[in-house]
């Protein structure tokens, strides 16, 4: 019985060697350049905002504070309270004391970049477990948000 099984498997293996077709083995000598056929998919980030590009003035710009509040209600309030209490993201109270203006503006306009390389942003992601959405704010809008946050933190 055992001997027959061995014989059978030997015969089957041999048949593969003898009868397998060679056709598929031929390779095209000049493969098409895939790079040439397709285009890259560029991931676009905003440009990083430097501390030196932001001017902080006193007193607060009242127009920006109210503009910032309107944007907050539309795009931020779902996740951020104005107290220190965490909802989906951290509460905003004292955020302007904890973070630099550039950090805040980059977090708003360049969240993907920040989550990629900023250790503080990465810590927040571990805490909140939800990537902060890119809410599509231009720098001018983000600056208004900052003014509103300063006002919320008691600056005049």
């Amino acid at each position, binding site marked *: 019985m055992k001997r027959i099984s061995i014989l059978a498997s030997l015969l089957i293996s041999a048949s593969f060697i003898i*009868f397998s077709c060679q056709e598929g083995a031929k390779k095209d000598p000049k*493969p098409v350049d895939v790079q040439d056929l397709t285009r890259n998919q560029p991931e676009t980030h905003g440009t990083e905002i430097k501390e030196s590009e932001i001017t902080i003035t006193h007193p607060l710009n009242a127009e920006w504070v109210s503009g910032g509040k309107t944007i907050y209600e539309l795009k931020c309030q779902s996740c951020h309270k104005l107290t220190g209490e965490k909802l989906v993201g951290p509460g905003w109270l004292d955020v302007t004391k904890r973070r630099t203006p550039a950090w805040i503006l980059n977090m708003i306009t360049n969240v993907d970049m920040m989550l990629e390389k900023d250790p503080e942003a990465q810590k927040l992601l571990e805490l909140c477990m939800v990537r902060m959405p890119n809410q599509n*704010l231009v720098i001018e809008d983000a600056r208004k948000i900052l003014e509103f946050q300063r006002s919320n933190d008691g600056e005049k």
Partner: protein
Amino acid sequence: MKHYLLKFFIPLVFASVGLLWIQSCKPKGAGSAVSGDAASKVYVAPGKYDQFYNFVSGGFSGQMSVYGIPSGRLLRVIPVFSVDPEKGWGYSEETKPMLNTSHGFVPWDDLHHIALSETDGIQDGRWVFGNGNNTPRIARIDLKTFRTAEIIEIPNSAGNHSSPFITENSEYVVAGTRFSIPMDNSNGDVPINSYKQNFRGTLSFIGVDKTSGNMNISFQILLPGVNFDLARAGKGKSHGWFFFSCYNSERANTLLEVNASQKDKDFILCVNWKKAEEYLKAGKGVKKAVSYAHNVYSEQTHMATSTLEKEVIMLDPKDCPDMVYFMPCPKSPHGCDTDPTGEYIVGSGKLAAVIPVFSFTKIQKAIADKNYDGIYEGIPVLKYEAVLHGEVQKPGLGPLHTEFDDKGNAYTSFFVSSEIVKWNVESLKVLDRVPTYYSVGHLSIPGGPTKKPWGKYMIAYNKITKDRYLPTGPELAQSAQLFDISGDKMKLLLDYPTIGEPHYAESIPADLVMKNSQKIFKIEENKNPFAALGDKYARVERKGNEIHVYATSIRSHFTPDNIEGVKMGDVVYFHITNLEQDWDVPHGFAVKGANNGELLIMPGETQTLKWTPEKPGVYPFYCTDFCSALHQEMQGYIRISAAGSNVPISFSTGKTIPDSISTKTP
């Protein structure tokens, strides 16, 4: 025992060897008609883009699909004429009006042909049009959003097959009647065998606004009751003309398979639409009372509106001489295709043994010379020999459709002989032929119907799939085949399945479309009257027995997510605004037991789901589109109380409603 095994095993071993040999060395045929480098030619590496967008009619699915070429990867199915519960199309309150017609809400149609918008005879990547065959309609899809932006119904029409072919500056898309019928404003209750007296065909010219793309029926032309089949606009020198193939010049009303195949020649109708415009301006048109729906989707309000229009202007050739001419075409012509120069019109008689190629220059001369071969129902018939450039001899069996490359060649599909034949338009010589699997219908070459074919690839859309894929019961995948046409010989590269039944398709270089592709809807521009633009506006309101929930969604919660105070007999409208402003972050919305589809709400958009609760209880709702690590937490509850209950309206997120604990349902 041993002996028995030996007897059993040895033949078995040899049988397996034989079987292996047969399987691995199948003779060259259907399976292996592919050259060795085919795989690398269709391979698009992960993260890389295809070269072309391919817009494919979805046939009896009623939708349009979008593929990447050369990979054959399905990128999107755009809901057009059929409801699509996956996307809420035809289920959300905002999209329901898109499927309205003069017959009421029609949830399905049969989409056969594609027309990409053109500027100066070249695809411009702005819009793609599709026809509804069954309840005659034309749809316009906006290629910024890949969504159906407009649907217009065609009055005085049935079987809108000869549609939506387009002129070289997108001045018009057309709609020709396949089924002739009694006109809408006549008494349609007539004996069917009074066809010749009472049934007429029409061609509709639908104007397309240059900026908005909005459609409007500019005029119709009243014609004899033949069956209009396919069409192409002239281009270049023949711009201003349109060519429509037609069959059933016998005007049979029964067993057309036999009765409409009697004559040696049917017709191609040549329409001088510039002339028609002149007659229209001169007031030769007659206003006809009709009723047809015109549905427009607004990207500002994120809502569709449906308007019933009441009138069309009809031009009758008897009042408008020199506007239309018939051209004889053997036998039962189907495809009617103009070459990139606009000089040649190729007719494909389904039962013909030749492919006639007509010359625009000769057509003009025959008209000038009044070189007629009689009059058909009041319309001059041009002499066949006088308008013929020549015939492609013995091309194959059952020619259907012709597309063109960028080198002066034509490619014609042959249904009966299951092959594609490449021939030179000028010399009419057959250059190459290649088999298809099986029974090819339409062909598509990128830019094939335009002044500037991009060439490179050709796709065959086959009517029969049979053994090309793993079997899936009686119904099989529909099938497309991709060919490389860059060389002298056509080379098969790829088979891939398609949705519905693919008829015509068009392809366009990817960069013409992708640069305009919209990523989000700006929340600041959301003008939906039911939008909640921020959590501040999230609320629940009662209006009589209607409950309006104005809710927001963002990763990953709804505001409000606890709702009480709804009673039996109420109708609930969930208006969900997606506050996200990030690409590719839609939220879904579904509620248990709703006799409805889901909502799929794009970033910045508001959509509404209507729900009539069936019995008291607490019903969960949740986000259906995986949105974040806490997607599974994106849920809420709505409480339905008995009719006459005193539970007040209340709503919240992030806190339990204090009052609700003490509130008892009566």
